[in-house]
């Protein structure tokens, strides 16, 4: 099935509101919907879901998408530059597959901030709000889960792997991602707590559910529409659907995909995980974060990247091509990056250190302008030259493509309204 689209003005979300149950479930209160309806027509949603590939630790994008082949040997590094599908733009030799589809992507080369630490840095990029000890801002994934209803009993927000700051912050734990660890084969994925446990059959679940309904019937019918009773009732039904339809279990089952398609993503850890992400989006999720670890290359940057880059390159390109073939690319945003870039000058251990002043992010689909290379860094890769991009701007542009302006307010768990982005302005140039 395809995710519920919100293409035609706000009619679809009004329909979502009429399904009071599911709306209450996902927390999109009346105020949110009225507000969503009042956003300017410019903001009618182009996209309905997002896959984020998070390169945890701070990827050396200077060795990926923003090479400096003409700089001195202290900066240039070990990789050759290769041509891309956009004349004049060059990628690293390790990015063979994405280089060939750059004309279908949007590359931001001028993302920058000034937090060189992993946790607050990723907090800034993941939430689009400057870290602030007063307010724990939600990740963009949690926001997406909060703002958009998911469909058919599949959770809105997954995190495949553990990324820092992927949580819901002030939105409350129910908007935290469903976190699933994807192990190396032959170990299999543990879906404890989201699929039927071993030893419980579908029939057994149904019987238990029926008996539970008998036990619950007097309590709930006497308290119909009171306090949290409707929400709990909705959760019970949704949870039953999740378990009995086994939607999550099936999304994680890659044996359903033909070998040729698995080959397109690559038979690697990251390839498998990205493919699961696509299956989750297809099943109705709104935001899936795929976490790739090992990018904090203070030493042996080049050897490490020779190992890490090719599978990520293949998986990203495979995802974009596959989404396009399925007609899902227009409504799905693909975004890839990390918490900061790395120092242009190579250190004595052949590594690069933390460098938030300049980094690249690769995007595709979801109404982002195809073939656009936005911004640039100076010829040694130290600083962005004008047309720079801040984490709030990048983050604000994502929900904007989902139909929500940065001024949109959500309520904290104690009921206070907070704008989703304190500073973020949509980068209109990025979107078509």
């Amino acid at each position: 099935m395809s995710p519920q689209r919100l293409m035609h003005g706000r009619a679809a979300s009004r329909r979502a509101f009429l399904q009071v149950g599911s709306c209450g479930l996902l927390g999109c209160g009346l105020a949110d919907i009225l507000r969503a309806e009042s956003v300017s027509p410019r903001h009618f949603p182009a996209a309905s879901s997002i896959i984020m590939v998070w390169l945890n630790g701070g990827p050396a994008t200077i060795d990926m998408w923003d090479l400096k082949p003409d700089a001195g040997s202290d900066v240039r590094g070990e990789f050759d530059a290769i041509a891309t599908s956009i004349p004049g733009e060059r990628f690293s030799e390790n990015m063979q597959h994405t280089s060939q589809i750059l004309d279908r992507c949007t590359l931001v080369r001028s993302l920058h901030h000034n937090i060189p630490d992993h946790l607050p840095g990723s907090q800034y990029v993941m939430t689009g709000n400057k870290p602030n000890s007063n307010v724990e801002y939600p990740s963009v994934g949690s926001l997406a889960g909060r703002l958009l209803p998911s469909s058919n009993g599949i959770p809105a927000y997954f995190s495949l792997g553990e990324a820092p700051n992927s949580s819901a912050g002030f939105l409350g734990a129910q908007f935290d991602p469903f976190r699933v660890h994807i192990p190396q084969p032959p170990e299999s994925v543990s879906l404890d707590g989201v699929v039927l446990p071993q030893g419980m059959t579908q029939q057994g679940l149904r019987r238990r559910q029926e008996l539970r309904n008998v036990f619950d019937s007097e309590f709930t019918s006497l308290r119909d529409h009171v306090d949290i009773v409707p929400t709990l009732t909705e959760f019970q039904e949704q949870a039953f659907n999740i378990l009995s339809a086994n939607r999550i279990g099936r999304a994680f089952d890659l044996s359903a995909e033909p070998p040729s398609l698995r080959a397109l993503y690559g038979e690697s850890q990251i390839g498998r995980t990205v493919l699961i992400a696509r299956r989750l989006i297809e099943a109705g999720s709104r935001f899936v974060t795929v976490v790739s670890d090992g990018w904090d290359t203070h030493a042996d940057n080049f050897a490490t990247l020779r190992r890490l880059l090719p599978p990520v390159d293949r998986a990203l390109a495979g995802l974009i091509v596959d989404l396009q073939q399925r007609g899902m690319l227009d409504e799905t945003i693909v975004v890839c990056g990390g918490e900061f870039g790395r120092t242009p000058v190579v250190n004595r251990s052949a590594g690069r250190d933390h460098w938030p002043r300049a980094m690249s992010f690769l995007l595709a689909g979801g109404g982002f302008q195809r073939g656009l290379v936005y911004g640039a860094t100076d010829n040694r890769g130290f600083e962005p030259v004008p047309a720079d991009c801040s984490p709030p701007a990048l983050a604000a542009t994502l929900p904007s493509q989902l139909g929500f302006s940065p001024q949109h307010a959500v309520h904290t768990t104690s009921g206070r309204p907070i704008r989703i982005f304190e500073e973020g302005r949509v980068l209109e140039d990025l979107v078509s």
Partner: protein
Amino acid sequence: MMIDALLAIACLVHSLPIADTTPAIAPLSTGVTACESNLIDQYVLGTLGELGIEPSALSSDTEFLRRLSLTVIGQLPKPEEIRSFVAEQRRDKRTRKIDELLNHDLHSAVWASRFCEWTGNSIESLAVDEEVAYQVGQLWHQWLRGRFARNEPYDRLVRSIITAQSRSVMSIGEWINEETAMVRAVRQRRDFTYADRATLDLFWKRTNVEDQYPVRELAERVASVFLGVRINCARCHDHPFDQWTQADYHGYVRIFEQVRHDMSPELRREFSRRLSERRRQFANGEQVGPPLPRITEVYLAPLSENDDRPAPKALGGPEFDVDTLDFRVALADWMIDEGNPFFARNVVNRVWAHYFGRGIVEPLDGLGSNNENIAYRELLDDLSKRFVASGYDVLKLELLILNSTTWQLSSIPNESNRGDDRYFSRAFVRLPTAETFVDMWHAATGIEPDLGNTLIRGLHAVEIGPDRLPKDRWDGVLKLFGQPDREETCDCSPRGRPGIRQTLALMSDPLLIADISRGRLAKLRTDDLTHDQTVDELFLSTLSRWPTGDERAAVRRASARSEKCDSWEGILWSLLNTQEFITIH
């Protein structure tokens, strides 16, 4: 008329002279004396009458006992307790039960847990060595629990937190001995009675993510927790809807700028004296004791002389003389003054929120906001005045609340009060705290408490201080069931909001499912109970009531359908997955 009937019941049910001056540690008052209507009922039932809202009926005995037990001691009532309570014929049995549970050992643990949450007992922000942070978090809980157990007047409790210094009256030598003993004890996972300390200096032993002393966070926390005032927004801009300006904020934060947590000059001197003494002993071939652990203290340092910033100033209160020895003492004096508009109201509102599931004012640190349209503002004022007059006696306030008809109303709505979510015309259906959920789960499945760490093995979840249980399966359960983030300096964490992960976990988490078969059921199979007795036992230990006829019939059908042990597991699973089980109602 319904309300008159309820007021009449209210007359029977209680009799609390809240303003009298009985010593705090004296036995609790019991029994019905003169018919004196409960203050809360006068306000609430009176207002409902004016509004034409009919309150719900009085709760049944089983509903009352369950709610009382879950809120007062954080535990489900035991089956035999339900049986004897329902069978009890005395008219004042509810009052007696209230007294009994308020005197229960776990009652103080419940308040210690809430105050650990509110005062921010968080592993992440405790500035102590990682290896002992966990034990130290437990000492924090013990300190609070001891005070609640003897019903220490609330003003005194707060004063010994907000004016805490490590040494208080001890000499530096004495204190180093004491503190060294404590550090050694916690390192060796031995008991240590920190609860005897005069003040909770742990409250001030903190660090933030940048490894700095979090003065502003501490200032904000004190305002939020002890005044019910959120000033965080004024850190960066004048508050949009509250009265606070940035000048208020900065003047207030200055109160806390004297506080230091590291090695004071005196400690440093004495420490190096001891070290050189040890070196001398060692050189002379004498026996030296075990190595001195690094210790730090909370102390005060004078503000710098040439500071032309505004003087320290209480929120909406007086400026303090810059020569004041400890601004926090001046702050405490101002807070605890009878005329303070926040101090008593804040705690009364928090106690109220604990028992009713929501405060008269929400959020709990919204007292500084424009709350023109809260229902029962006068009730809050009146309760606060009496609370002050009673000598800040929390227990008396609890007695008044729990004995009120208002608190004892059923959660079943009628046509006129179904939509009421602010006048307290019925009991709210809500989730228990995460700790209480874990304890409920243990009691209902009958598994032994085993919360991982040696220090707390065998304890109930409400008896645990720290907010992390390293490498323990219950850590994830506590987070999943809404344990608040204690690093936040405001009342911003979700309270009682359900999540679908919770529902899914209850239905399918393999460890929780395994608990169902390894606990009570494993034992029931060997007990000689009849079918009906077993069903009763399962209902009483989960839903705290007996099954209805329909439910008995459904259970019979279910057991006829499958193998015996299978079906009991299915039946208990079904009980544990009801809304009736998972909520306080």
